[in-house]
């Protein structure tokens, strides 16, 4: 028996004007296996949906084509109507007769609209049912790192009831927290104390991740502590492995010494209770090698202010640009200037030389347009942000990209900055970009929300076997495993002999790259199979 296909044509509240709906209806009714055509306006609104539902039931329609707006807008709404009528939500297709037909052309577009409907009907005829199923997920979270974002997110995970393991490479927690606590009036010890007391948080120090297998909701992580290796299971992994700083005086052919020091050394000198000889004049230099100078700017401004307040030295800052895009930094910059710190902006690299045990800096100030020569007792060289040393090894291990500077790449800089291309693996804080404290806090909140949404229901609803490997056809060439951008394909052994590729419903994001590349054509992508795509092509120009 032929499947009954119902076509619903909607004029989108009268916004489609250049289609002759009655003529279209007549033509569509003649398409084979289309049992009924229904005209409507506002199909997506309450009344339209109710009518659609009752019509599907009355006429025993099995598959539905809606010709209306773009599927980007309303596809999910109509799928719900289908499911409400007891049909498989997958048996649905939309013909975009509004955005890509009526609105895009001048004059009558009835012929094209009918053709678009025909394409959708041709596709829907070949669809196979896709069932939805629930898969349970492991509700434990692994947080890798020991710095502020790691500690803070572990505390929040525990608060929302997710068991968390905090894994730190170093012997103790804290990371760079101690360095910044003064600026943000944080209390390092109380935060670490809170983590240690929390019963929901397990702390593993001097421990490293050496292997990650599995997929979202069910990761198996190999952890090495000393000579011992253990396997643990987690539902999601959050990396907060941070950044490292590198003093880069080689940009100026400088050598660190008594007169030329790093920011870190200066911070130590400022924290010390007494100093041998207070420098009368101090120069800072930064933003030569790297465009991303958010954190160096912050460090420079903070140190310059402390210098002024504590030692009363003359302070000069040589820079290309003062980046004040973090919260409160504009104010800090103004305050620093009010304290008498001089900013000199250059385009070309300043020349730096030694003179009578002091440092001579010659630069062309672009604002004054003149050459400036200054001699300082102390020059503080810039620090560059570099990824933590294990970043490269981890990215290879996880099969996740890094950006041009070696930091982890965001999945989408605007929409999903803390996600990665692998579901269930997140990156927060300094390991993905140079983030100031406020931005790191935002990262912590986003990751907590992301993981909560993922793990708290305890199960995930997925479309079962939408992309499926035909075990008979699979020749175990591993091509699909190599190309899958989401690491969703693994080898499984069947009947104790042949090994075949298997696609995880959880990790698959439905791109179809594997289906296109498979040399044996063993992978079928339901909804976008070769036959279904070709069927659409066949409908073009047939009338």
């Amino acid at each position, binding site marked *: 028996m032929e499947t009954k296909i119902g076509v619903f044509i909607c004029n989108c509240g009268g916004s489609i004007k250049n289609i002759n709906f009655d003529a279209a209806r007549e033509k569509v009714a003649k398409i084979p296996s289309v049992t009924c055509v229904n005209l409507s306006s506002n199909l997506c609104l309450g009344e339209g949906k109710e009518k659609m539902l009752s019509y599907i039931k009355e006429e025993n329609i099995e598959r539905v084509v809606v010709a209306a707006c773009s599927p980007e807008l309303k596809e999910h709404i109509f799928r719900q109507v289908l499911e409400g009528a007891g049909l498989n939500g997958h048996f649905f297709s939309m013909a975009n007769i509004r*955005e890509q037909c009526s*609105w895009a052309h001048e004059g009558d577009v009835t012929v094209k609209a009918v053709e678009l409907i025909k394409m959708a009907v041709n596709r829907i005829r070949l669809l196979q049912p896709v069932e939805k199923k629930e898969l349970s997920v492991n509700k434990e979270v692994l947080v890798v790192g020991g710095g502020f974002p790691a500690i803070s997110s572990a505390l929040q995970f525990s608060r929302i009831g997710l068991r968390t393991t905090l894994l730190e490479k170093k012997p103790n927690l804290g990371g760079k927290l101690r360095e910044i606590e003064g600026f943000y009036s944080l209390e390092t010890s109380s935060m670490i104390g809170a983590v240690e007391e929390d019963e929901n948080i397990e702390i593993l120090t001097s421990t490293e991740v050496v292997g990650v297998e599995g997929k979202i909701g069910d990761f198996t992580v190999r952890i090495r502590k000393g000579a011992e290796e253990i396997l643990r299971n987690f539902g999601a992994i959050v990396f907060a492995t941070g950044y490292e700083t590198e003093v880069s005086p080689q940009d100026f052919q400088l050598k660190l010494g008594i007169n030329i020091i790093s920011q870190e050394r200066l911070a130590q000198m400022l924290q010390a209770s007494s100093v041998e000889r207070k420098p009368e004049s101090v120069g800072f230099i930064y933003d030569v090698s790297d465009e991303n100078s958010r954190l160096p700017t912050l460090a420079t401004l903070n140190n310059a202010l402390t210098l002024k307040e504590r030692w009363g030295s003359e302070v000069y800052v040589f820079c290309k640009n003062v980046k004040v895009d973090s919260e409160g930094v504009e104010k800090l910059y103004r305050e620093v200037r009010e304290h008498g710190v001089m900013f000199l902006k250059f385009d070309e690299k300043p020349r730096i030389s030694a003179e009578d045990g002091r440092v001579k800096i010659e630069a062309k100030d672009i604002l004054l347009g003149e050459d400036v020569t200054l001699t300082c007792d102390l020059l503080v060289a810039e620090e560059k942000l570099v990824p933590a040393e294990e970043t490269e090894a981890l990215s290879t291990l996880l099969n996740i990209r890094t950006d041009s500077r070696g930091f982890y790449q965001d999945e989408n800089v605007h929409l999903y900055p803390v996600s990665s291309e692998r579901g269930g693996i997140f990156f927060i804080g300094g390991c993905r970009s140079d983030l100031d404290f406020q931005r790191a806090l935002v990262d912590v909140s986003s990751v907590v929300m992301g993981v909560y949404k993922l793990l708290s229901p305890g199960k995930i609803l997925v479309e079962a076997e939408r992309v499926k490997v035909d075990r008979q056809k699979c020749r175990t060439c591993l091509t699909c495993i190599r190309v899958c951008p989401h690491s969703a394909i693994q080898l499984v052994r069947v009947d104790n002999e042949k090994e075949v590729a298997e696609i995880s419903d959880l990790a698959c994001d439905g*791109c179809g790259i594997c289906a*296109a590349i498979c040399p044996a054509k063993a992978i079928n992508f339901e909804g976008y199979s070769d036959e279904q795509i070709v069927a659409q092509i066949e409908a073009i120009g047939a009338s």
Partner: protein
Amino acid sequence: MNKEIVAFCCEHSAYPAADLAGKQRLCYPQNLRIIRVPCAGRIDAIHILKAFEKGAAAVLVLGCEDGACHHITGNTRAKERVKYSEMLLKEVGIDNRPVGMFNLAPNEPHKFIRVLNEMNKRIKESREAK
């Protein structure tokens, strides 16, 4: 079909761009037929060749911008396959039917129109050359 352009549009970039072109009423010729795919990387040479077999005047594969593909490598793989099918077409002597892969962002309806106009121009040129 003999004058239609078949465009395989990635649902993350080119399809919304085409929608936006409609929303902004940027009119373009009626000979475009869009097939929505989850990623440009889904498109194989067979789909492009089938479209020509059915008489398409040109085939377009439209994916995300370089380095911004939602599925990381989909757009680069699509580019390779378009190149490969171009080679196959040349081998069988169909060299007057243009096929192209272009990258565009979902908020670039004007680029979408530009690509389309260029394709229509190429179709016209190859017809005149014949």
